């Protein structure tokens, strides 16, 4: 998602990250990654549930999930101690100013992430409507 941060800003939008640990964990995460995007957290995970994101053993430990984890490991990503709920899957929403949902992706297992192209397409829809 960081790759398309310039394109997101160019479209007049902002990338915001939401996690599910404590605010302390969120601050540590921001400092470790040098995150530039605004960061929030929902320790209750209510927003995750309302957005329909998955949670559970099968989502986390599926064969595809394990394959994604292995690939990430080979690329050098190392998971430190889990700060948050280990079984919670994430997702991505593109929400237009005012609340209309332009795009939603619910990760079906660990490693299954939203596509940058689809996010950009959703943002272009906003720009195109503004231009008309």
């Amino acid at each position, binding site marked *: 998602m960081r790759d398309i941060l310039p394109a997101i800003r160019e479209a007049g939008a902002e990338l915001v990250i939401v996690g*599910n640990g404590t605010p302390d964990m969120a601050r540590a995460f*921001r400092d470790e990654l040098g995150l530039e995007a605004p960061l*929030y957290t929902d320790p209750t995970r209510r*927003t995750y549930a309302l957005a329909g994101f998955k949670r559970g053993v099968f989502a986390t430990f599926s064969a595809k999930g394990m394959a994604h984890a292995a690939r990430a490991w080979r690329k050098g990503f190392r998971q430190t101690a889990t700060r948050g709920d280990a079984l919670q899957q994430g997702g991505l929403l593109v929400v237009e100013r005012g609340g209309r949902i332009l795009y939603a992706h619910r990760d079906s297992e660990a490693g299954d992430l939203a596509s940058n192209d689809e996010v950009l397409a959703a*943002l272009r829809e906003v720009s195109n409507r503004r231009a008309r």
Partner: protein
Amino acid sequence: MNVDLGVAPILDLEGRAIPLSSLWRDRTVVLSFVRHFG
């Protein structure tokens, strides 16, 4: 998508609660919900 999503609170880095909808009040937002922080 549940209609209560916008009113559900999230915490900023100082632990202050705001409704999720405040994130899209002024501009379009790409909201990435991560699995966990690390």
